[in-house]
């Protein structure tokens, strides 16, 4: 057979931008049901920021109750009787708040921000493709995430309220309405996550195919920017972990609706089975939430230090190692669950070993800024904070990974402190860094640096004042998910600390308004962005801001790795990946694929 036949499906997906051909898509196809990865990236951004706001508002209510237990919440009077009569939160509503706060933050804010937003924005641009491999699948991915989010949100207003069994939804509590007082809400929780799972799967298939098959000539594996490496590995984690959650959620839904007993002990079901399945998904999930953040931070740190990333191959290896080890550690969430203690020992070993690749990452970041020429632009500030805070979160993970220590701190605020250090201090700071970094590329306007720095300073200070004391609360014995700690005599002395935390949590929430204002204001009023404001190397920075539909005018070629900063003897301290070696004549890219690769023979 001839060579063309199988080429067709591959190449027709590439619409290289044709400057003579203005973008004439009608409004709906351009902004709403768009198949352009950049538009979909923006859609994911606005959707997730909205849910971040929702999750944040829920956190404010949680903190109100914990800071001033039983006091009517200011403005709480608008809530219906079933949630907060007279503005005083009910305990069952508190459980829903905690559950939905965790669910929204993890599934609808951080995950779509990292994977949906950065994945869509960066993958085609960084690898030099015109779009994703499957643009329509990409659009469907976004448009199934939206209903999933609104189903979750809608569960607040159904009879019985929103799911209230924690974001981990341990049965039997989550399976039997008589136990939790929630029926429809708990089912909607399952349904929403199953739909969201489909959305993530579609995204993952797209990302993997695009990265494997659509890299521009010369973009070899070891020349890929680290965000792409981390998104690639993340996509694999999503691909293999989400189906487990979907399967478990379906079984839970059956237990709730048609009366099976997979997780209910009466007829021989196993409550621990849910925990195994959930955490078999859940631990890879937390790496889904940190790996792209690490990639973004690496990109920004190299840029801000004007230095090549220290030990690129080791950085890639560490991403792969973390992801691989992430599959064999899930039992560390179940040390006290009644699981065989000997299994606990082996899970402790595998969990601890993850500190090693994490150490490689941390020390290589330090190595990158060492002897650099550090520019403190807003993205860089956030990325440096990411490193500092991730270390705290990671080190607190080591305490919990130690089985005997975990006996005491399991299910206390020590865990809450850990998870916010890695998720807020880690993921969210990296997200801030990434948004400040790429906003100019995608909207053609700079975010205000002044507002950015104010936002950073307030967030950094308040964030630590909120979450660091939680370690002490946990060591004081304060359990998670409790509505009123003062029920326990031994927790009463901790009330002042809880109030302290709440005060700064409210301040933290309010200071996020600076960020939201900055985004909204800069979208229309921000300074116009040049092509390459940060003097960065990867392919997107040679495009217009924002890049046209179809991205590149023709297939770009790649000549070097992404972190060639401060190359000696060049006038500039950066070197675009797509710039031919002698600055003009087009060569066959060195080390690139020989003509004919990428096509079946």
């Amino acid at each position, binding site marked *: 057979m001839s060579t063309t036949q199988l080429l067709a499906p591959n190449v027709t997906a590439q619409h290289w931008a044709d400057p003579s051909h203005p973008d004439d898509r009608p409004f709906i196809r351009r902004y709403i049901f768009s198949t352009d990865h950049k538009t979909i990236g923006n859609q994911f951004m606005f959707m997730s920021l909205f849910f971040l706001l929702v999750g944040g508002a829920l956190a404010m209510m949680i903190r109100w109750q914990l800071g001033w237990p039983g006091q009517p919440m200011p403005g709480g009077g608008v809530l219906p009787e079933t949630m907060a009569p007279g503005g005083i939160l009910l305990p069952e509503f508190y459980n829903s708040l905690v559950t939905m706060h965790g669910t929204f933050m993890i599934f609808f804010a951080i995950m779509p921000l990292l994977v949906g937003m950065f994945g869509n924005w960066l993958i085609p641009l960084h690898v030099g493709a015109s779009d994703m491999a499957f643009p329509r699948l990409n659009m469907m991915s976004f448009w199934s995430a939206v209903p999933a989010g609104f189903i979750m949100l809608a569960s607040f207003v159904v009879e019985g309220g929103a799911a209230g069994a924690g974001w981990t939804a341990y049965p039997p509590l989550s399976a039997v309405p008589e136990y939790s*007082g929630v029926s429809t809400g708990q089912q909607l929780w399952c349904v929403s996550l199953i739909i969201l799972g489909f959305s993530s799967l579609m995204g993952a298939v797209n990302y993997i195919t695009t990265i494997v098959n659509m890299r521009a000539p010369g973009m070899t594996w070891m020349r890929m920017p680290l965000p792409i490496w981390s998104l690639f590995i993340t996509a694999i984690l999503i691909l293999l972990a989400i189906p487990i959650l979907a399967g478990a959620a379906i079984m839970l839904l059956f237990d709730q609706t048609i009366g099976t007993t997979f997780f209910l002990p009466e007829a021989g079901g196993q409550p621990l089975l849910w925990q195994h399945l959930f955490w078999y998904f859940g631990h890879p999930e937390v790496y889904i939430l940190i790996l792209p953040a690490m990639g973004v931070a690496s990109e920004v740190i190299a840029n801000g230090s004007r230095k*090549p990333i220290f030990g690129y191959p080791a950085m890639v290896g560490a991403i792969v190692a973390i992801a691989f080890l992430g599959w064999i550690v899930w039992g560390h969430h179940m040390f006290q669950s009644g699981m065989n203690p000997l299994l606990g020992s082996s899970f402790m070993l595998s969990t*601890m070993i993850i500190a090693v690749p994490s150490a490689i990452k941390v020390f290589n970041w330090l190595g990158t800024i060492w002897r650099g020429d550090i520019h403190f632009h807003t993205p860089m500030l956030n990325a440096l904070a990411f490193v500092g805070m991730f270390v705290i979160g990671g080190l607190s993970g080591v305490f919990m990974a130690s089985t*005997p220590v975990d006996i005491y701190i399991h299910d206390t605020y020590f865990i809450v402190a850990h998870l916010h250090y890695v998720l807020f201090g880690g993921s969210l700071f990296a997200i801030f860094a990434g948004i400040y970094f790429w906003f100019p590329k995608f909207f053609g306007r700079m975010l205000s640096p002044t507002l950015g720095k104010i936002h950073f300073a307030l967030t950094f200070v308040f964030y630590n004042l909120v979450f660091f004391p939680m370690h002490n609360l946990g060591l004081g014995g304060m359990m998670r998910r409790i509505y009123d700690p003062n*029920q326990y005599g031994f927790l009463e002395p901790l009330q002042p600390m809880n109030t302290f935390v709440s005060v700064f949590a409210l301040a933290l929430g309010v200071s996020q308004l600076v960020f939201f204002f900055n985004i909204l204001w800069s979208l229309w009023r921000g300074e116009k962005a040049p092509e390459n404001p940060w003097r960065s190397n990867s392919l997107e920075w040679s495009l217009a801001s924002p890049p046209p539909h179809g991205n590149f005018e023709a297939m770009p070629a790649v000549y070097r790795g992404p972190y060639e900063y*401060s190359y000696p003897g060049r006038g500039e301290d950066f070197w675009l990946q797509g710039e031919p070696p002698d600055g003009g004549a087009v060569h066959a890219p060195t080390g690139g694929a020989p003509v004919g690769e990428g096509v079946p023979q």
Partner: protein
Amino acid sequence: MPEPASTFGAGIDSIYYIILWITGAIFVLVETALIVFIIRYRHREGRVAAYSHGNKKAEIVWTVIPFILVLFIVYASNDIWLEVKRADQGGAAPADALPLRVVAKQFEWNVTYPGPDGELDTADDFVKRNQLHVPIGRAVRIDLGSEDVIHSFFLPDFRVKQDAVPGMTIPVWFEATRTGEFPLACAELCGLGHYRMRASLTVHEAADFDLWQSQEIAASGSPTGASEIDTERANEAEISEGEESA
């Protein structure tokens, strides 16, 4: 953390402090390096960043050292873990342990005492709600179960925490080293009353424990208080200490 009141409490705390020292040192090292580098290498007119792709030797050093450290932590932790879980005995409590049964349910702890014969499931057993009484200096074996959802049996002062899972009976043991009254808390979200599913643990001198036990039997003559259904709503907040010992 409260002062430990069980035999293995101090061991658990010691590994906590080992980890605290190790991670504390790493924390100080990393954050200091971060801050020093940030200040030392901040942008100045004329500064040129070094062009370097890394250093194999340094990378090997900072891979191997953490590896050794975590192996040490695992080794030290595992010793205590196996001791606490009595893995060499197949999880069985010491032979002379006082057997108790604790069954959790929304939102209370029901404790079955073996009575004078020291054996469960005999006629002289009696049940107390939300009150755990144990003698000092003698191991206690608890068969932990749950009637409805997952709860978690948490004795902060004793460094004991174990989920109570319906459909399973999980052995827990400890030996008290101090007399007094201690909190028993529920650490696993179990519904709207999770936050107030508390009970108390009283550690008696050995003789006082026997005395208490005979008083209990005399006072009731029969098992007490096992199955009152606790349907009161949390926010009505009428649960007082007094009625629990009724």
